[in-house]
């Protein structure tokens, strides 16, 4: 019901891509990369995604391609790259051996921090600051994963093909917002609210969003309660929700 290529795109843009938000929102993460010489790591996946993550002045940015990277990590397949994310594959750089220390030290610390937010313990979630950041990072990861599934997963592509052109706003009241931009069935997630959404899906609170992400409450019942608001071109949201159903299959 899932495929390695789609998972690789999710791992690249939704999971590793969340490092951008981690460094932006968590001062400890930002501090880890604030006093270093700028460094960029390229992930080149055969028959899969290619992107470069650059750390500079305490911030992180992901861009398409691997042409300008200091360290290049090649992967012979999507499965191998997915192994990096689940910890079963150790990458060997094809370029930038001198920067291996950054990979083993600070980069690993950052990804460990990200994992802690993505798969939080109940104890950690009792801390309000941690809870909010964890929920925010999960939100960005999920909204980016929607586009990757809509563009690569066979069933997701069917759903995406039924989304009319325009912007879907997904948001948490008092929290983060994302745009799912759709054009001819191709989806792009932008991690900020659209100016002119054609449809809106808003979760009523950070608590509700977290409970939904962790399967503690029923989305359908919450729609009835009015704590999940849906407005505008509902057929866009309907199809985004069908893709959203598949996010759990990949990120479980």
């Amino acid at each position: 019901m899932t495929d390695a290529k789609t998972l690789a795109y999710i791992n690249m843009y939704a999971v590793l891509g969340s490092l951008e938000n981690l460094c932006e929102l968590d001062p400890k993460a930002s501090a880890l990369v604030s006093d270093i010489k700028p460094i960029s790591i390229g992930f080149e996946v055969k028959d899969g995604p290619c992107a470069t993550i650059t750390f500079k002045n305490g911030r992180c940015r992901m861009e398409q391609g691997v042409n300008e990277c200091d360290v290049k990590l090649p992967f012979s397949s999507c499965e191998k790259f997915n192994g990096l994310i689940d910890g079963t594959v150790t990458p060997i750089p094809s370029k930038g051996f001198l920067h291996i220390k950054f990979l083993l030290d600070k980069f690993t610390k950052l990804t460990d921090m990200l994992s802690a937010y993505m798969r939080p313990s109940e104890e950690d979630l009792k801390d309000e600051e941690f809870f909010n950041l964890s929920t925010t990072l999960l939100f960005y990861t999920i909204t980016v994963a929607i586009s990757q599934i809509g563009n690569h997963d066979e069933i997701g592509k069917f759903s995406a093909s039924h989304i009319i052109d325009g912007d879907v706003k997904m948001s948490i009241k008092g929290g983060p917002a994302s745009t799912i931009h759709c054009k001819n069935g191709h989806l792009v997630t932008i991690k900020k609210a659209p100016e002119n959404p054609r449809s809106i899906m808003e979760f009523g609170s950070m608590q509700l969003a977290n409970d939904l992400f962790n399967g503690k409450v029923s989305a359908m019942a919450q729609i009835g309660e009015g704590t999940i608001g849906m407005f505008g071109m509902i057929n866009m949201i309907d199809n985004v929700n069908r893709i959203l159903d598949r996010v759990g299959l990949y990120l479980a």
Partner: protein
Amino acid sequence: MANFKINQYDKSRELFARATKVIPSGVYGHLGPAEGNFIPVSAWPFFSEKAKGTYFWDVDGNRFIDYMCAYGPNIMGYNDPDVDKAAMAQAKLENCTTSPSYKMVELAELMVDTVNTADWAFFAKNGNDVTTLAIMAARNATHKKKIIFVNGFYHGVSAVVQKIDYPGILPEDVANNLYVDWNDFDALEKLVAENDGEIAAFISTPYLHGNYFDNVLPADGYWQKVRNLCTEKGIVLIVDDVRAGFRLDTAGSDHYYGFEADMICFCKAIANGWNVSCLCGKDFLRDAVAGMSYTGSYWMSAVPFAAGIANITKMRELNLPSILLDKGKKLCDGLKEAGKNNGFDLVVSGEPSLFYLRIANDDTMMLHQAWIAECVKRGVFFAGHHNHFINYALSDADIKETLEIADEAFKVVKKEHPEAF
């Protein structure tokens, strides 16, 4: 400005809280707040208490002029005295019994006499029962596996008529489903050529009355060309008349549009809310249906048969479809006029007895949703993104009240969204 009472729904909400504890999603399916597109949910009632004629009352005592008609079954008016009298009389005799009631034969004879394409009638309970049966029967008759659907379709909830991205559906469930756009005969012809000798059936509603978009009537000559193609290629032509049946033509919507289906599916309006569905078909498909393993515990219950006989008889005597079309036209013309007077471009599509509404001032439908909600809050039950239904009990006074509420709702929305005007 507010001349009409604004509904409160305290008891509905209390019941919904109870419901979510014991029923998945509280109210599932099209009658619920999620699939029913209650936007915002605060404007809608969730549970009813009683119904009569064209009205239902919710558990908070709010009365609604109901333009959804239970999503179609209420065609004569809730609790129609003639239909209910027949049902109650039958209930005193028998209902669900070991040998089926003779009422089944009488209703089958009436269906065959009423429905233009019918040489036989097979009864079940829901629309899905008979759309699924029609597809299986077409495969049984032709020994072919592929089915052509029209994009935007809804033919029920069986796996074969759902879509690949729906929860619980496997790719294998829909692997033999082909899709074509409505009214695009050239594309249909091409699809048939590409799958020559493999297509069992083409299934479609008589016109495109899907949700979320304007409903589209058949282009001139479309159905006649489809009929000829199906005949030429040995493809069974199935019309899903579950939604439109008896609101356009008691002889079937295929008859209304000037062609003959091989099988036609009815449900909603057969018995004015008493639960029975029916597949009618031509002689050459009789044995294909007879040989199938297809039945249900309540499919031969006598009370809905008796209700169906009374209802169909009354519909024929009244020539009900023409009355419903007239009532629908009167309402739709008034709604468009009220919209125009307030600066709204209200698009009405589909047939007037099953009218579909859309405010076209913006490309988000948010103005439309706001207007629908304001109408519902004042006691006119419209749906945001589904076609509506006219029933016989709807009076001129009801239409007048509806138009007054619609006008007030337009004014409220205009005041609250000055940026749109």
